[in-house]
């Protein structure tokens, strides 16, 4: 692993327990995030992308599911750490801005106490210093210090999400995981928050794993993008490389979003069929039942996570990617 790598996930898998036994929701997921980079992780709901975020921070409860594989956060393997060591790394090296900031703050504590809980849990007990740090952070996300004395229910959705971002930056972590941080917000607030994240990221140089179902948004803000489907990574590459995606699913996904500037008749084209049922997934490539390029082998052979030679570190999981005519998509570039 080079010094330049902040996170390296290797052969990660996750099971959830259900009434009819464990089901695999994430399988053979491997990727890296470099220092100061934004990696966008896209996929439909149920593709396992949020589960990846939870597994990377070891938030899968033993009562709910189990995980395996390696999660290297610089030189420490999060998947193997004991509870105590894990707690000390959490938030200092990796923090999260959750999907629903609405529910991610404790409803009965003031924002200030919630900052205090984090700081004190990590051994910082100087009240004056702590308060100064909170004020600094709150102003950094363009809020006034009065917010600290409020309860979560007194804040708007956008304000809560800003508070969540401020909290995530408390210890200057190397990596911030953002799990659909703008999904619950309206478009205008979403735009504000995204530009706020970009600004802070440039200022402090942390890496971001940005999870979203909105591929278009990811292509606009990320350095590299990964596509997930049915618990597997299907393709990963730089934003430039995604101008000509290799996997049929990536192409279909791109075409299902209206291109920027598209007018009138150019409507989104949906992908026919339904996402796979994790309890009863199709054999072979998970996407083959919906794929317009599928052959007989696609239904029986599981494609490997294959490096695309001569293309940096672009990777794809498709048996037929070489055979499929490389039509450039009529996308945003």
């Amino acid at each position, binding site marked *: 692993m080079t010094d330049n790598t902040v996170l390296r996930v290797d052969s990660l898998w996750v099971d959830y327990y259900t009434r009819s036994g464990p089901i695999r929701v994430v399988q053979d997921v491997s990727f890296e995030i470099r220092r100061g980079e934004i990696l966008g992780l896209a996929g439909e709901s149920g593709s396992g992308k949020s589960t990846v975020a939870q597994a990377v921070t070891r938030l899968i409860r033993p009562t709910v599911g189990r995980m395996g594989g390696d999660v290297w956060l610089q030189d420490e393997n999060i998947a193997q750490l004991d509870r105590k060591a894990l707690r000390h790394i*959490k938030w200092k090296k990796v923090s999260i801005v959750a999907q629903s900031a609405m529910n991610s703050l404790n409803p009965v504590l003031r924002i200030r106490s919630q900052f205090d809980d984090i700081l004190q849990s990590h051994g910082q007990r100087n009240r004056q210093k702590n308060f100064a740090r909170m004020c600094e952070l709150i102003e950094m996300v363009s809020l006034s210090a009065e917010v600290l004395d409020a309860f979560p229910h007194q804040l708007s959705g956008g304000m809560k999400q800003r508070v969540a971002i401020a909290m995530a930056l408390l210890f200057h972590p190397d990596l911030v995981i953002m799990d659909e941080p703008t999904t619950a917000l309206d478009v205008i607030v979403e735009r504000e928050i995204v530009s706020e994240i970009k600004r802070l990221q440039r200022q402090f140089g942390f890496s971001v794993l940005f999870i979203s179902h909105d591929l278009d948004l990811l292509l606009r803000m990320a350095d590299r993008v990964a596509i997930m489907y049915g618990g597997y990574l299907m393709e990963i590459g730089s934003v430039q490389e995604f101008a000509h995606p290799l996997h049929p699913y990536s192409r279909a996904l791109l075409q299902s979003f209206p291109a920027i500037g598209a007018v009138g008749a150019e409507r989104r084209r949906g992908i026919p069929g339904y996402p796979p049922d994790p309890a009863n997934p199709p054999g072979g490539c998970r996407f083959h039942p919906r794929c317009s390029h599928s052959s007989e082998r696609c239904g029986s052979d599981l494609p490997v996570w294959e490096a695309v030679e001569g293309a940096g570190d672009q990777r794809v999981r498709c048996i037929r990617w070489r055979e499929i005519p490389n039509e450039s998509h009529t996308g945003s570039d």
Partner: protein
Amino acid sequence: MRYLMRRIIFYVVAFVATITINFFLPRAMPGNPAEALMSKFGGRLNPLALKSIEIAFGLHEHEPIWNQYLQYLGQLLHGNLGTSLAYYPASVSGLIGTALPWTLFLVGLSTIISFVIGIIIGSISAWRFGGAFDTFMSTFFTFTYAFPYFWIALACLYLIGYLWGVFPISGAYSMDLVPTLSGSFVFNVIRHAILPSLTIIFTSVGYWAVNMRNTTITTLAEDYVTMAEAKGITLRRILLRYAGRNAILPNITGFAMSMGFIVGGAILTEIVFSYPGLGNLLFQAVQQEDYPLIQGILMIISFSVLAANFVADVTYSLLDPRVRVGGNQ
């Protein structure tokens, strides 16, 4: 504050409803019970006591019912609950006044202790969801829940009081003592309270434990608890300030709602231990068909339960800022 105002209005309505039920109950019964009563005691009563019974039980058939109701309310407003028949000429309010403190002490304290213990056991059960402790406790409580209070009281009395002779088995203090605030008297009172109190705690603790367990399990699945874990907050803080603080809220509402249920059962315990509280007084009154006393006790117990409910509501509003402080939502 709007929340508390709404609750206060509710309690006023509930109390008026209770009084009204109390007024109409004997009138709705097949064959007014007071008729029989009058033929039994009538000759012994002075005119004043007679008058108050007539008002309370509706023996003035010729007067319109709303008139009777107003007279009844007037009597209550003056704190006049009538005269006891069994303890004639003692007043009902006087008898209740002597018994009430004992009940507040025994039932009130035991219920609070039971609530606290139940909350602790329920939380531990939830944190160890599906583990040995949880499985044992939820099975055990299925049974404690199902046994009648008075029978647990009998069993306690027999085992600990009769066979082992560890604790006194009846009364609130030894008969040869004169109530004073001396150390020995207080000690004597506590010794007498232990068995009945243990009975109440034993039979009601499962109720709180099971409820707290279930609300904690629900709370542990909330995003803010997961996020607290992600933040590396210490386990102690997560369990107390994130899971516990939130999980206890519905239990306080539950505490208020089941107060009538719990207190009712607890009161029966007094009878077994001849504890000189309201339950025992009610039992005496029922046995001797002392209707004015029965009516008075029902009213005072209802009132106490409503008051306890109100205290629970105030506590709730102190613990939940969404009720206390208004906001955007």
